[in-house]
């Protein structure tokens, strides 16, 4: 897959507060990409930068189209976005909201409005004023607004929070269909990796306005599955043995005595045997399951890959 949008060391400061410190990522054309981060990690700001709603103070964000490279703001006609809160015109009905939005794109087709509302389960509420809508209905309408003009690039900010399980499933299926049949490039943000792990192709971890790692969903699942925790008297020497004697490179040095080995292809006793043979004192060893926050905390202490 070719690169569709690329951010290179982009940063953004709002009211003297650095919101995005270092944004570097690539989103492949035709893929589903998720940005995962906790609250206040800067997910919404990243999406605002990638859609051109904000311009970076430093670094650059480039969108690759047939004419060459452009900025996202120049290509807003090809971007369907729902970012931050589901803001709507309250005195207008659901269909009027979509009608109004399509008019700004210089395009109107009653069928696409109907289809957009049907896709998110709001067909029966098409003529109801959005001031009477619940949060979930407003959110689904905002998602419909991002999708109904069938843009090649869709950006959704935390689309599942506030929806019930059935609605979440429905939106997930809708996104999968869009990606499969229309090859729409989809970018999502979420605080919960479990919301996207079943259908996102790649995941970028974001923490404190910095992109930590971008990897395939499979790889992240693998990293979160389990690791071997080692506590030795000399971590640097132990890593030398891991790399040279056992050919293990997928590990992380937590401090002077602690190492986490994500490559679990070697049995624990083999690892222990080799380290002890190297004259290193082994204090502690065990298998551990890691949650995403703990993993990200560990990742942020080392250099981004």
């Amino acid at each position, binding site marked *: 897959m070719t690169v569709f949008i690329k951010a290179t060391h982009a940063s953004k400061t*709002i009211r003297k507060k650095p919101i995005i410190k270092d944004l570097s990522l690539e989103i492949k054309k035709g893929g589903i990409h998720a940005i995962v981060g906790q609250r206040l990690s800067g997910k919404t700001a990243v999406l605002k930068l990638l859609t051109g709603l*904000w311009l*970076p103070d430093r670094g650059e964000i480039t969108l690759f189209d047939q004419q060459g490279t452009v900025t996202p703001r120049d290509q*807003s006609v090809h971007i369907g976005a729902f*970012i931050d809160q589901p*803001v709507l*015109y309250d005195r*207008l009905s659901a269909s009027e909201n979509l009608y*109004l939005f399509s*008019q700004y794109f210089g395009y109107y087709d009653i069928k696409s409005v109907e289809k957009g509302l049907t896709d998110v389960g709001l067909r029966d509420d098409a003529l109801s004023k959005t001031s009477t809508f619940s949060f979930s209905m407003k959110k689904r309408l905002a998602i419909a607004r991002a999708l109904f003009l069938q843009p090649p690039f869709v950006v959704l900010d935390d689309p599942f929070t506030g929806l019930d399980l059935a609605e979440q499933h429905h939106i997930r299926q809708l996104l999968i269909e869009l990606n499969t049949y229309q090859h729409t490039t989809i970018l999502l943000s979420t605080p919960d990796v479990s919301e996207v792990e079943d259908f996102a192709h790649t995941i970028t971890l974001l923490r404190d306005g910095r992109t930590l790692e971008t990897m395939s969903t499979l790889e992240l699942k693998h990293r979160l599955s389990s690791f071997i925790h080692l506590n030795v008297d000399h971590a640097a020497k132990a890593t030398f043995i891991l790399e040279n004697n056992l050919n293990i490179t997928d590990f992380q040095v937590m401090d002077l005595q602690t190492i986490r080995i994500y490559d679990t292809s070697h049995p624990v006793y083999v690892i222990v045997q080799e380290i002890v043979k190297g004259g290193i004192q082994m204090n502690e060893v065990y298998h551990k399951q890691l949650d995403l926050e703990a993993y990200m905390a560990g990742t942020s202490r080392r250099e981004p890959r």
Partner: protein
Amino acid sequence: MGHLIRLEFIKYNVWNFFLAGLLLNFSFALILVLFIISISPGDMRSIYPSYPDYPFFTAFITTFIHLLIIVMSAYLQRHLIVSEFKKDTISVLFSTPVPRSKLLWAKLLLIKALLLVFSIGSFFFSLGALALFNYQLETITVPLRESISWTDALRIFVMFFIVILISFSTLFFVRLRNGGKMMMLYSGMLAAILFLPLNAPNSAGILAHTPVAILLFLLAGILGIFFLISQAKRKN
């Protein structure tokens, strides 16, 4: 641009504005009638020798419309511009391919057009109501046609246009936290300072009759427009 202005019409219930304008006009017509009935011509002639005549009431009507233009402009700006920033619907508009400056110009032109229609309409309505009332009472002896020429009317309409531009100086408050409230407060103060004889009875003159003051406030209004447009082009 016409297309964008039409979309603004869809978003904002303009009929409410016209209804408010109509109610204001009826109220003002009533004030005019009360003015004529309750004030004795003898009292007024000590400061305005030819009272009652149409030029006196024309000046009275236009001053009142000037005051209304400034306050209603702030009201419209609050509903059409500030509320979009406050509710963040502006970010939805900014995500469309329409240039940000065009989106804001459409709002400003709509406000300008509405105020122009309102002010000219109010002028004819009030003058018409006065003429109708005078037809019954015959208080004013010199006919309307002989009192006010079309050139005078044109001069009055140009002044309406200038006052509308002046009213845009409230745009400096758009992005502030309580921008809407501050706009309303500022517009009230601006209207009072420019069009009310604050130094009466020592001086019945108003600041709006000083060309330098008008030019300065006009410059502030134009700068307000460009301030808003430049804000929209910012990086965030």
